[in-house]
């Protein structure tokens, strides 16, 4: 059997949980790709704010280029740290920028077996909308198995809200 192809989506704030879960649960002989996506809307927003100034942008400074340079530099360092934590210095490191959720899907579109994703979103309010927008999109559209991991400790089952008042649930189906 050929080894599995695994992509770990590395995101600031939650990446350690993904790497640890990959180490714990996935075969060590898998081929790993570590993926980071810089959201282009953030650099665009920062850059566009200067357009609102009508060009009085402290001439001689080019903040937009600085944003890209800083983002590329830090993404490379983050991916290197992730490869070290994974214990696979030979893992493929992929850094992209664009619309995050679409870039992630593009990265797993072909021949990937498992995508490792951290839950993000507001974890203080677990419920139907507790996945962040990008994660929700990726879970919905990824053409491979998705391993959704808690970035830190898992919640206890007491996080399930008590049943709401209302009509009682239908009785369990009877097996005869």
């Amino acid at each position: 059997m050929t080894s599995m192809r695994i992509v770990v989506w590395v995101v600031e704030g939650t990446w350690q949980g993904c790497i640890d879960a990959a180490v714990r649960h996935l075969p060590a002989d898998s081929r790993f790709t570590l993926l980071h996506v810089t959201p282009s809307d953030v650099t665009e927003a920062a850059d566009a704010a200067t357009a609102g100034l009508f060009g009085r942008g402290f001439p001689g400074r080019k903040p937009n280029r600085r944003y890209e340079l800083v983002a590329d530099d830090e993404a490379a360092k983050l991916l290197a740290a992730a490869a070290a934590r994974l214990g696979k210095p030979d893992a493929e490191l992929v850094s992209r920028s664009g619309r995050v959720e679409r870039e992630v899907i593009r990265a797993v579109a072909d021949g990937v077996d498992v995508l490792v994703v951290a839950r993000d979103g507001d974890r203080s309010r677990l419920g139907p909308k507790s996945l962040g927008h990008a994660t929700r999109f990726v879970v919905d559209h990824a053409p491979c198995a998705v391993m959704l991991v808690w970035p830190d400790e898992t919640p206890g089952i007491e996080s399930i809200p008590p049943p709401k008042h209302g009509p009682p649930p239908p009785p369990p189906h009877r097996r005869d």
Partner: protein
Amino acid sequence: MPSPIAETLAVLLLGATLGWAIIRPRGLPEAVVAVPAAGLLLVLGVLPLGQAGSEARSLAPTIGFLAAVLVLASLCDRYGLFEAAGSWMAAGSRGRPVSLLALVFAAASVVTAVLSLDATVVLLTPVVFATVARLRLRAKPHVYACTHLANSASLLLPVSNLTNLLAFGASGLSFARFGATMALPWLAAIGVEWLVLRRFFAGDLVGRGETHAVTQLPVPVFPTIVVALTLAGFFVTSALNVSPAFAALAGAVVLAVPAIATRRTGVQNVALALDLPFLAFVLALGLIVKAISLHGLGSVVTHLVPGGAGLGSLLAIAALAAVLSNVINNLPAALLLLPAVSGAGAGPVLAVLIGVNTGPNLTYVGSLATLLWRRVLIRRGEELPISEFLRLGALTVPPVLVTATLALWISLRLVG
């Protein structure tokens, strides 16, 4: 020249000036079209020389003030004040994203108020971006906070925004009274932004930043003291009936001389920071708008703007100013609206400011026209990923507008 023709010509030239300023072919300065356009209006007599002279005289202190503040902010950057602020934010947050956001809010609000929104957009935002990246946290909430507060937190002082400088002359207020009246609206706007952004980005304010790489830089004592003294100077000069522009000039000179002597910066950098083409653009734009006002549009605007200084009028004025600034950018909107309200006292003038300063967050680039142009530019490559920013604008601008105007109404009763 008959008035309708003169008016049409002036409006066309304003359109050309704004269009050029937005597109900026080959990165050429805005003044390239604005100055000849103003010159043409003068030569053709659309704008009588006498009127032009009085408009230029009333704009000159404002433009000088702006120039001094731009130089001051640029020198603070050369002295490492913003880099140091980034390191304090990183260390102070101890890697917690919500604490970091609170510190970014504080820094962006103070920098915008004291050194103008330009300093926040151009000098502080890159530092915040780099700081967040180094902490390995998500940049989005913090960067969006900077761009939003550059507008919303520019209500406090006359120096915080070019529009404020324009209104400062029209309002007849002293520097201290301006600040005292706008303190409550300023805090209200920041408070609403905090509540909305904190909730909107809850999903991105996750994890714990990695602070092992953070080294806290020492406080650059000299520029900090000079900025504090300059700020005090604004209040003192204004109380003595001297233009506060001189305090800004003094601060800029005190920072510039040792910086040049120790080769921290060059004379040419200081001259660049002065941004003479932009100053010429502001003057020319002022003259063009004056010509438009003279030939009929002024009275139309005066009729459009609600009279009175009750809460309802203030809200209507702020909303009108916000809408207009989103259509044509807030600088011409302020130039057009301020003369129409300046006779009605400080309340309506300050309500215009709330509209033109906080309104631009709706389209994140200052105006609809700029937004459309960016779309044209981007279409060839990737689609512009801005829906989230527009949604955030729609969620923050209306409540900020209403809350800040309500605060202004209360403030006018308290401060008088």
